[in-house]
């Protein structure tokens, strides 16, 4: 690729690349500035009603043309638009003197503020505000249509696209780039379901203008200005060389249903059984017998192989109702996971007893581990406690950077360690894992994370401790090869990813995996680490 091709990084959606001319969607036309009405409240109320009904029927029309996922989105939006409380709020605004459009936008804003600050609703708020704009635009006779070309082939570039926008995508839209939005935005969901190559969260795309030609390269997580398809990153295809994966592939579960699903996958055992669900939903502490029954049922349903059970990982952001957890300013840095032992030793002891009884009853190969261990003393405290209560294998989660150097002293005390890469990234980079603007630091190809993983695998091997990875990163097939190359003994992925991760780990031998991990370690950025690893992988083909 010649050096004058500007590369803009983002997050890819899909596996196919496309190169075409840009159609730049201009920022939405501004609505008239907030204004008062001339005194006829009834006329304004009527305007709101008919604009709401008109937008409602637009949504119905768009829904009728769409496939199921999209249709459900439009039905939900229409239900919100027709919310009587929203209409009453708008009438109150009219009573205060605002004209119909302003009144409705203000009413929407009242609810948007009520919902703000709650991560469950972050993406819904943008949709609700869009409804407000649509009603106001209708009141003022402004068109919010995108006026997209219907013939030719274009890559649509814009800030982000609402459900009403994406429903207007014509056949001429062959690729999509958004400046904002994330992997769970509507644009991403729609493009995935319609197989339109897309790159979202691509901040560099703000300077792209209509008429330029771009390559949308989702596999490479990038947009390349002026490049053609020959520069596209090739999607990986894994050709099996052996019957069994290089390291064992386990599944992550959190419930009986998950255990049943995992048992239908090719997973060899369970690498992470999250036990929180058993407790987060009950108001009273389940009795020892109830816990034994739950664990027995779930252990019996798990896929064949070892089952790694994590003791409770709760904190003030994930409170257990019956443990009376105080509010904390920084729950991620507070009393969570094994730190609960100080106040709730009996509870953790009882959990370990219940797991031991279920182990004995089912005869399964059970391993137990504690989350949020930060020091050698804590690791030893858990090891001694668990050793006194059962005959399982004993380990800890590696999530805090502080525990890494202690691994070399833990030989003989621990049987295994398991890395939670999501939390390890959060604590390595001091970046809240839920923060929408810090997503780039949570990318598991970050060189800082890969080098920490290399240390963990080395120290564990020297101490004679089995090492595994159960975070999100282990569900990425290419990254699982890096993990095997670094020296980890097992990986654990979500049940739906087990098949792909296994295929990846059946396509290389140990020496090749080591070469891929060395390539990844040579990167100076997440993008570079990933592309170096993928280039190395591609070099083995043919």
């Amino acid at each position, binding site marked *: 690729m010649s050096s004058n091709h500007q590369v803009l990084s983002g997050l890819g959606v899909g596996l196919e690349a496309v190169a075409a001319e840009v159609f730049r969607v201009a920022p939405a036309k501004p609505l008239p500035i907030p204004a008062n009405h001339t005194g006829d409240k009834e006329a304004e109320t009527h305007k709101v009603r008919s604009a709401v009904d008109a937008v409602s029927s637009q949504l119905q029309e768009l829904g009728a043309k769409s496939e199921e996922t999209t249709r459900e989105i439009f039905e939900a939006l229409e239900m*919100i638009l027709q919310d*009587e409380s929203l209409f009453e709020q708008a009438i109150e605004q009219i009573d205060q003197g605002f004209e119909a459009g302003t009144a409705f936008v203000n009413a929407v804003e009242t609810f948007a503020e009520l919902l703000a600050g709650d991560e469950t609703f972050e993406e*819904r708020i943008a949709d*609700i505000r869009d409804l407000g704009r649509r009603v106001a635009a209708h009141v003022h006779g402004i068109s919010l249509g995108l006026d997209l070309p219907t013939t030719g082939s274009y890559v649509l570039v814009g800030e982000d696209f609402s459900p009403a926008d994406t429903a207007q995508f014509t056949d001429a839209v062959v690729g999509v780039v958004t400046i904002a939005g994330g992997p769970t935005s509507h644009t991403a969901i729609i493009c995935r379901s319609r197989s339109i190559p897309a790159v979202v969260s691509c901040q560099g795309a703000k300077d792209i203008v209509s008429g330029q030609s771009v390559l949308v390269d989702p596999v490479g997580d990038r947009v390349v200005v002026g490049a053609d398809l020959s520069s596209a990153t090739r999607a990986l295809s894994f050709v099996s060389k052996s019957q069994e994966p290089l390291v064992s592939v386990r599944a992550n579960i959190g419930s009986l249903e998950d255990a049943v699903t995992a048992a239908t996958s090719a997973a060899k055992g369970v690498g992470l059984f999250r036990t929180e669900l058993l407790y987060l939903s009950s108001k009273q502490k389940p009795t020892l017998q109830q816990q034994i029954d739950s664990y027995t049922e779930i252990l019996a349903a798990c896929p064949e192989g070892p089952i790694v059970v994590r003791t409770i990982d709760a904190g003030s952001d994930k409170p257990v109702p019956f443990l009376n957890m105080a509010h904390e300013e920084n729950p991620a840095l507070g009393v969570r996971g094994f730190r609960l032992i100080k106040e709730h030793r009996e509870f953790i002891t009882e959990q370990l007893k219940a797991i031991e009884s279920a182990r004995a009853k089912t005869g399964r190969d059970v391993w137990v581990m504690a989350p949020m261990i930060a020091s050698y003393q804590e690791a030893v405290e858990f090891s001694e406690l668990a050793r006194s209560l059962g005959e399982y294998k004993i380990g800890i989660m590696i999530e805090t950077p502080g525990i890494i150097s202690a691994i070399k002293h833990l030989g003989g005390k621990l049987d295994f360690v398991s890395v939670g890469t999501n939390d390890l990234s959060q604590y390595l980079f001091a970046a809240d894992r839920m923060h929408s603007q810090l997503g780039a630091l949570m990318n598991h190809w970050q060189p800082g994370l890969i080098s920490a993983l290399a240390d963990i695998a080395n120290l564990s091997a020297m101490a004679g401790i089995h090492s595994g990875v159960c975070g999100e990163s282990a569900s990425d097939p290419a990254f699982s090869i890096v993990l095997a190359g670094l020296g980890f003994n097992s990986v654990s992925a979500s049940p739906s990813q087990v098949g792909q991760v296994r295929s990846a780990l059946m396509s290389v031998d140990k020496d090749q995996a080591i070469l891929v991990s060395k390539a990844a370690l040579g990167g100076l950025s997440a993008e570079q680490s990933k592309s170096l690893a993928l280039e190395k992988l591609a070099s083995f083909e043919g």
Partner: protein
Amino acid sequence: MSTISAQVVIEDPIGFHARPAGQIVKLVKESGLEIRIGKPNEKMVKANSPLSLMALKGKSGETLVVEIDTEDQSVADGIVSQIQEFLRG
């Protein structure tokens, strides 16, 4: 008309989000009854309003009070158990 009240628990690990709110509104509209939902000892909101229900910001594990304006205990029981089902996620 008398009011029957009952309690439900949010069991959905992600809390009281948009989908259960929509399911409850649909149920309330179909029932034709006036139904209110709220946290104990706090202001109740009309259960036909998805936005008001979402604005309760109910978290997993929290208890909610359901008030139904009806004299028919079996109708009320049916509605409460369906609402509980929606909140199971």
